[in-house]
């Protein structure tokens, strides 16, 4: 529910911004369905409004969305048994939100719940995002001063809120703090897109330096208890524990 609200708020603001930049509703819809990447769509609005040439926009989009490679690689071990065609479709729906929901969900359960992925990617993100962007571009003119409504804070708040579900031990906390610090520092020296990618690469490397025995896991993932506490309704950790990548059923992580 929180993710859907985040997608609606962020999508509506994107629609407003695109409207201001002269995008038509069909162009906004094409961006949302084809690109389906909030940050890069936002950036593209600014680029188009400033008159940047298309090759530059495409290059910056590739850079901004390069972080999805990390998401994709992180999910790959979990989804390796899913049919190639379905993984190809899953890839297009892979966003910050879909990744955070699904990786946390898989880790808590101890197996890849593909139904959970579709729910997180389509119901909680794709549909609300697409409809909200359309609403923003069509209805935006009736909102005098959207910044007063604080909608711009929804995206960063949602990102930090999503990370909470993944902070299950000292390693994860260290990775998050270092990722944020390095990300900001590099962003100030280069650009936000580069900072986010470098933070996402360096944070986990430093997190790994925390010895596993002192990582103080507060909610061991892949166990029945964590699944009952955090799993999507209707799922059970006792099922298919042997499908967890990199671990056996006798050795829960």
């Amino acid at each position, binding site marked *: *529910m929180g993710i859907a609200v985040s997608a609606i708020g962020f999508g509506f603001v994107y629609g407003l911004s695109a409207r201001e930049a002269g995008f038509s509703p069909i162009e906004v819809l094409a961006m949302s369905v084809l690109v389906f990447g909030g940050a890069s769509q936002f950036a593209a609005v600014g680029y188009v409004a400033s008159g940047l040439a*298309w090759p530059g926009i495409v290059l910056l989009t590739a850079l901004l969305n390069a972080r999805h490679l990390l998401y994709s690689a*992180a999910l*790959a071990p979990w989804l*390796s048994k899913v049919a190639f065609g379905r993984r190809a479709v899953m890839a297009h729906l892979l966003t910050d939100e879909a990744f955070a929901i699904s990786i946390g969900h898989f880790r808590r359960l101890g197996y890849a719940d593909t139904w959970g992925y579709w729910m997180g990617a389509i119901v909680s993100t794709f549909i609300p995002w697409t409809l909200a962007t359309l609403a923003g571009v069509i209805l935006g003119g009736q909102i005098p001063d959207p910044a007063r409504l604080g909608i711009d804070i929804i995206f960063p708040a949602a990102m930090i*809120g999503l990370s909470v579900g993944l902070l299950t031990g000292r390693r994860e906390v260290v990775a*998050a703090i270092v990722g944020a610090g390095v*990300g900001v520092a590099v962003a100030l020296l280069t650009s936000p897109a580069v900072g986010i990618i470098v933070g996402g690469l360096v944070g986990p490397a430093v997190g790994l330096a925390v010895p596993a025995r002192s990582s103080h896991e507060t909610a061991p993932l892949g166990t029945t208890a964590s699944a009952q506490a955090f799993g999507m309704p209707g799922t059970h950790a006792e099922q298919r524990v042997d499908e967890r990548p990199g671990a056996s059923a006798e050795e829960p992580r």
Partner: protein
Amino acid sequence: MSTDLIPLAFLMFLVTYPSRALGLLTPWLDRLPRVGFEYLQLVGPAILAALAAVSVMVIVSDDGTPSFHIGVEWIAVLACLAVTAWRRNLLLGLIVAVAIVVIARNLGLAEIPT
């Protein structure tokens, strides 16, 4: 109704999809050594925290120069973090974050972004 930007959307899709698909469709990734798998599991917290931090701490001027930003947005994001961790409820965290920003901006305690 203009359709001039639809080809641009398609080009943006063409450069975005490979980064989304490469990991998922590369066969050897499911045979990663354990350390590789553990590294990838830490990517989520790191990159989500980086996204949030960069979004509220770095602003980019019209000429493309990034600069450090201090504002009520920090408090809102930290409040969302605290509420979400405490109540295990992201929606409640988002409501608190938005409320803080709305109140601060409408009372003139924080500047309104342009």
